[in-house]
């Protein structure tokens, strides 16, 4: 809103209320409460005008609110001036604010009337108001109504005739009633056809509709109410419309903050449906749609699976693209065009949330890839070690065995004939056997054949038998498990027993392997010194990595002086 316009509006409002107070000075104790209410109601419309101009610069609502405010106060100021011209003009224009109020109601919220018919209704309403007021003035003599000294003469008076004046008043009441009926019907139709944001934006309008009706009934000449009802009830009803509008404007200013809160409150990885719900709530538009382009360019689908034409939206709908979201759009109630800033903010928030979700999915996918590739690398390593062990077994070991046998035969043949040769061959045979033993150990270190041959139970048994610390097996399941799980379980027990022998200063150790639904739990505990740290150089780090490579978890419980308990929880079908 233009700064000068705002200054002018504020100055105008202050001047109008000031003039009103000045014109009715000195206050008459009898009329003072009524005059104060007048000032407040007039001012409330002017304040609502400023609020509307500020909130919806593209709407004429601000202008209409301001006009209603002036039309409400000015006739009374003129009447109070005790000048014949002002007095006559004031009387002719008195009550015309009701027509402006009806105009405001029908033009809600854009400030523009929707059809030629509605335009006609509003013009007719202004016209009948002024026409009947003017006609009544021609036959109304203030002196005959008991206003002798305080009232200036009526300049329009043609003939003093209370009966004609009253008849005109009654006719005006009937015509006003019909016009009000038409206008209220149209307002109700607007309300019923509005959806989403527009419907919310119409809440103050309902009160303005009530004010239009109340104004007509209470000030029309058909019904006669006590002054208390007319001067207390009507201002209250009139006040409600602008007050509600100002309140809703203040609340709308917090909608931007509500958007931020909605996005922050959205849990990570929330579905687009939940994002839409959060945005719709924050925006106050229950009809908001979040739509994504379908692969192959076959239009858009919103989060509830409904087809959306983003290029030609339905009547009363508008579309805004969401930047950086691969073509997603927001489809919203057209009434929100009045709040372009809020729409921009919503699109930006949606873009951020979608981008966040996309990045999260991407990171998740990358993590999944890394996990899978880590498992593949470990598996490939295992396979390579199995192959190496097998090659040693089939190749070098086999040859050494044959060599050893040949040397045995050679020694037998040399026996007796050449003791020196026999001793030489005997020592060569011994070397060959030792080489074979060393090669076997090496091969076992590369990959335990017993694991491939017999599975976990046999392999753990072999490990325990070789362990220098007295070790018992509490439980080991029979049967075979996936090779990477068997290898990892074996590696855990082997590494743990090696640690027990090297660091724990333990008297005994226990190995327990249990099959649980979907898991294999490997546990190795000892009664040694404890104090093992997973981040220390005791091979626990490598063990944890190995366990993690198959998607398992390694837990180490090793209080100083309290022994060490190591548990690997492996996923296992």
């Amino acid at each position, binding site marked *: 809103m233009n700064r000068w316009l705002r200054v002018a509006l504020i100055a105008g409002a202050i001047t109008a209320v000031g003039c009103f107070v000045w014109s009715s000075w000195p206050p008459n104790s009898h009329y003072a409460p009524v005059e104060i209410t007048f000032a407040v109601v007039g001012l409330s419309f002017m304040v609502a005008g400023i609020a509307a101009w500020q909130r919806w610069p593209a709407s004429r609502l601000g202008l209409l609110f301001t006009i209603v405010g002036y039309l409400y106060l000015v006739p009374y100021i003129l009447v109070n001036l005790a000048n014949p011209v002002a007095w006559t003009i004031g009387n002719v224009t008195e009550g015309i604010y009701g027509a402006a109020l009806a105009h405001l109601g029908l033009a809600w919220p854009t400030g523009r009337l929707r059809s030629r018919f509605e335009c006609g209704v509003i013009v007719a309403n202004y016209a009948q108001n002024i026409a009947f007021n003017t006609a009544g003035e021609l036959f109304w003599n203030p002196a005959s109504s008991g206003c002798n000294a305080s009232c200036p003469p009526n300049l329009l008076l043609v003939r003093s005739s209370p009966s004609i004046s009253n008849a005109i008043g009654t006719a005006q009441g009937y015509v006003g009633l019909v016009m009000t009926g038409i206008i209220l019907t149209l307002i109700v139709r607007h309300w019923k056809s509005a959806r989403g944001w527009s419907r919310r934006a119409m809440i103050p309008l309902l009160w303005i509709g009530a004010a239009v009706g109340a104004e007509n009934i209470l000030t029309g000449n058909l019904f006669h109410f006590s002054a208390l009802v007319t001067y207390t009830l009507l201002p209250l009803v009139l006040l409600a419309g602008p007050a509600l509008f100002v309140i809703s404007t203040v609340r709308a200013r917090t909608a931007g903050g509500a958007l931020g809160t909605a996005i922050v409150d959205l849990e990570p990885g929330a579905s687009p449906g939940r994002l839409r719900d959060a945005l719709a709530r924050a925006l106050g538009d229950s009809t908001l749609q979040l739509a994504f382009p379908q692969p192959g360019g076959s239009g858009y689908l919103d989060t509830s699976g409904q087809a959306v034409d983003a290029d030609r939206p339905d009547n009363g709908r508008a579309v805004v693209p969401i930047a950086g979201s691969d073509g997603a759009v927001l489809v919203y109630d057209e009434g929100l065009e009045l709040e372009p800033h809020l729409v921009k903010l919503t699109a930006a928030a949606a873009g951020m949330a979608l981008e966040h979700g996309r990045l999260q999915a991407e990171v998740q996918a990358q993590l999944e890839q890394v996990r899978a590739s880590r498992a593949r690398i470990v598996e490939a390593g295992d396979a390579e070690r199995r192959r190496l062990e097998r090659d040693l*077994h*089939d190749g070098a*070991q*086999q*040859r*050494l*065995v*044959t060599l*050893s*046998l*040949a040397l*045995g*035969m050679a020694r*037998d043949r040399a026996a007796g004939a050449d003791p020196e040769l026999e001793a030489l061959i005997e020592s060569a045979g011994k070397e060959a*056997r030792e080489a*074979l033993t060393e090669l*076997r150990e090496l091969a*076992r270190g590369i990959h*335990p*054949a*017993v694991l491939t*041959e*017999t599975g976990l*139970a*046999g*392999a753990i*048994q*072999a490990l325990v*038998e070789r362990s220098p610390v007295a070790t018992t097996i509490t439980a080991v399941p029979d049967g075979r498990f996936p090779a990477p799980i068997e290898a990892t379980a074996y590696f855990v027990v082997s590494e743990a027993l090696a640690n027990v022998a090297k660091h724990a200063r333990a008297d005994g150790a226990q190995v327990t392997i249990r099959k649980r639904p979907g898991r294999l739990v490997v546990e190795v505990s000892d009664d040694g010194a404890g104090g093992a740290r997973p981040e220390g150089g005791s091979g626990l780090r490598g063990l944890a990595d190995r366990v993690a490579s198959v998607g398992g978890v390694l837990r180490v419980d090793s209080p100083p002086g309290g022994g060490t308990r190591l548990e690997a929880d492996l996923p296992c079908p």
Partner: protein
Amino acid sequence: MQAYPAILIVDDHGGFRAFARSMLEAAGFTVAEAATGAEAAEAARAVRPGLVLLDIGLPDLDGFEVAERLAASACEPAPVVVLTSTREARDYGGRIAASPAAGFLPKDQLSGAALRRFLAPEP
């Protein structure tokens, strides 16, 4: 009565078979050879060996399976099956004890005397 019954050597490693044959023949045994599990079953029917020296790592079936089949076939009298490998017995866990074979002999400890102990267990 034949003092030294026929021995069937089942091993896919030709060099080993050749050495084993010459060693066992020198020790007085009659020797037949097979390179695979399938050949072993066939040779067992044809030769009716008194003892089968059976390598565990064969290209088609493994030695445990061949031992099962030999025990299940209607050869009368059933041959004494001795499993062998370049690996040690503990590399096979409890599988050796669970098989119908009479025992296990590491390849590098093969000799006529060792086999004779399987044929005539000391009381």
